[in-house]
């Protein structure tokens, strides 16, 4: 039995169904991210676990106990909010101690626990400051300490980094993950930032229109997306449309050029319109010195080759993203920046190569 179980949970506001029959089992100590666009139901699902929303149907269990109808203050679930939600009238130490005082813990226990939490978040010197005297990153760390001080069974984080600037976001997400590993606390993390979800999670739950589209480890979600939505939402994806030439061997005609999809087209027949997808790092530009981060280094002779024209070159620092026009299709590819090699110019002829195994044939394509 999993530590946290969400069984057939559904939520509707009047006629508007925002979460549809979500099933999820989370193990003790696991870090799970809910990833999806705005309005996909990820925050509502989190709020149902916290007790701020009552499910229209279904049950939620923590450690075997049904908490579906318990009030939020009876659940022992810690939550960190996007807007920090620190109490403005209390100092940092008072904020961290709040939950312990409410639980009527003895003063001899509260003081050391607050010190311990402030040391964990590396802010013991700010104990006497008020929230308005702290930066956004410091406020969010205090919010994290406050949520953890009560030793919750489950930690919920609702887009905790989205109000912070990029550098703080990266450092804080590493801190959160390392703290979560250290404490071994079961955590649900809501985000619409795929990079956050991919870098922090043991598993990712990709949600779309109130449904769970796919649950899996970050590597699996990225490399083996089950649906077109997952593939397009997580990472960049180029879609190549064409006509099936040989379904069994996976031969496809893309604008008069033949390519092979390694997995074939089991549900199609010759002459059917079809589309395949490719990650930018799976393709390489022939003759260009930069090295692509291909996921499948197939033999040179086995690689698909498509002729096209350079449409756009974007320098992103360590990576150069190149868009190549292939008839009606545009294919994006990433190549590592090599200071000794000049990037190709717009309008130049180019040959793109990629492994048949890297082509994704998606459900609903």
């Amino acid at each position, binding site marked *: 039995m999993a530590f946290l179980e969400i069984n057939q949970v559904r939520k509707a506001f009047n006629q508007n169904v925002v979460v549809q029959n979500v099933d999820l089992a989370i193990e003790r100590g696991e870090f799970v991210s809910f990833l999806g666009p705005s309005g996909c139901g990820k925050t509502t699902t989190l709020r149902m676990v916290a007790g701020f929303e009552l499910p229209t149907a279904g049950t939620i269990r923590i450690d075997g106990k049904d908490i579906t109808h318990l009030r939020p203050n009876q659940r022992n679930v810690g939550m960190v909010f996007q807007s920090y*939600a620190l109490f403005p009238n209390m100092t940092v130490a008072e904020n961290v101690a709040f*939950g312990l005082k409410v639980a009527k813990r003895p003063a001899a226990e509260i003081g050391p626990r607050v010190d311990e939490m402030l040391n964990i978040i590396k802010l013991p010197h700010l104990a006497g400051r008020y929230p308005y005297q702290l930066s956004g990153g410091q406020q969010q760390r205090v919010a994290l300490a406050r949520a953890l001080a009560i030793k919750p069974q489950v930690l919920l984080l609702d887009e905790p980094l989205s109000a912070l600037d990029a550098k703080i976001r990266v450092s804080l997400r590493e801190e959160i993950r390392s703290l979560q590993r250290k404490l071994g606390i079961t955590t649900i993390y809501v985000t619409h930032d795929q990079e956050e979800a991919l870098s922090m999670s043991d598993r990712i739950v990709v949600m779309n229109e109130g449904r769970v589209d796919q649950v899996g480890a970050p590597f699996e979600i990225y490399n083996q997306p089950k649906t077109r939505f997952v593939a397009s939402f997580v990472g960049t994806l180029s879609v190549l449309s064409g006509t099936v030439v040989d379904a069994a061997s996976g031969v496809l005609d893309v604008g008069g050029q033949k390519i092979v999809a390694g997995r074939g087209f089991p549900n199609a027949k010759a002459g059917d319109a079809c589309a395949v997808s490719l990650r930018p790092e799976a393709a390489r530009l022939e003759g260009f010195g930069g090295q692509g981060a291909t996921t499948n280094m197939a033999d040179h002779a086995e690689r698909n080759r498509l002729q096209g024209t350079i449409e756009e070159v974007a320098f992103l620092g360590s990576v150069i993203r190149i868009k190549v026009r292939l008839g009606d299709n545009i294919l994006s590819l990433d190549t590592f920046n090599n200071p000794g090699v000049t990037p190709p110019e717009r309008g130049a002829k180019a040959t793109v190569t990629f492994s048949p195994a890297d082509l994704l044939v998606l459900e609903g394509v």
Partner: protein
Amino acid sequence: MKQSRLGSWIALIIGTLYFVVPLAGTFEFSLRMRSGEYSFDAYRSVFSDSAFQDSFVFSTLMALATIVIGVLLVVPTAYWVQLRLRKLRPLIEFVTLLPLVIPAIVIVFGYLRLYNSSSFLPMTSEIWSTNLLLAFSYVTLALPYMYRAVDTGLRAIDVRTLTEAAENLGAGWATILFRVILPNVRTAILSGAFLTFAIVIGEFTMASLLNRPAFGPYLQLVGANRAYEPSALAVMAFVLTWACMGLINVFGRAKQIKHAP
């Protein structure tokens, strides 16, 4: 540019004269009780009058009672409207504005008709119950100011998230209200309280028709029978009101400093 600055100065001078001249005139007149020289005799006369002391103490106590009842009525209501009943906000705002458009005399006649000694709830038959009725009527009169002040304070904080954060940490409703919400709208409540105090201390209609010995009816009585004392009382009333406004400003500024980014 110069023309607009000149216009501003003219407007400022006219405005200042409009407010200051009558007040200065009243103050100057209040000092003329002793013939041929300026003195504070009128003020001495007022302070030595036991009716002044009694009525002022009575009105002060009524103002305090009004503030307590008003806070207990308005804070939970405004909090709940902000948290759960946002759709009702226009209706609640309309109701709280009614005392501004319904004259006090209409309200008090309604009270007298409803709560007279032969009614089902004879609140005017005893002094203590009449005082209670007067306090309730003052709560009604001050409702637009108290509600607006508290509502503005609540809008300045994220009531919903703070409530959820406290609830998530195990707090019940009383803890949330008294330890999280109230301290964060304290300045707003104080603003409402000072406005209520200023209104109640000089209120005439309700106290007079309910026949209670308040400061407003005393002012009217002195004004009808004396020459210099009413001017002294008018100046004192102004000073008291301004002191209340000054305190609102002081607390408002303290809040701005505390919530500075």
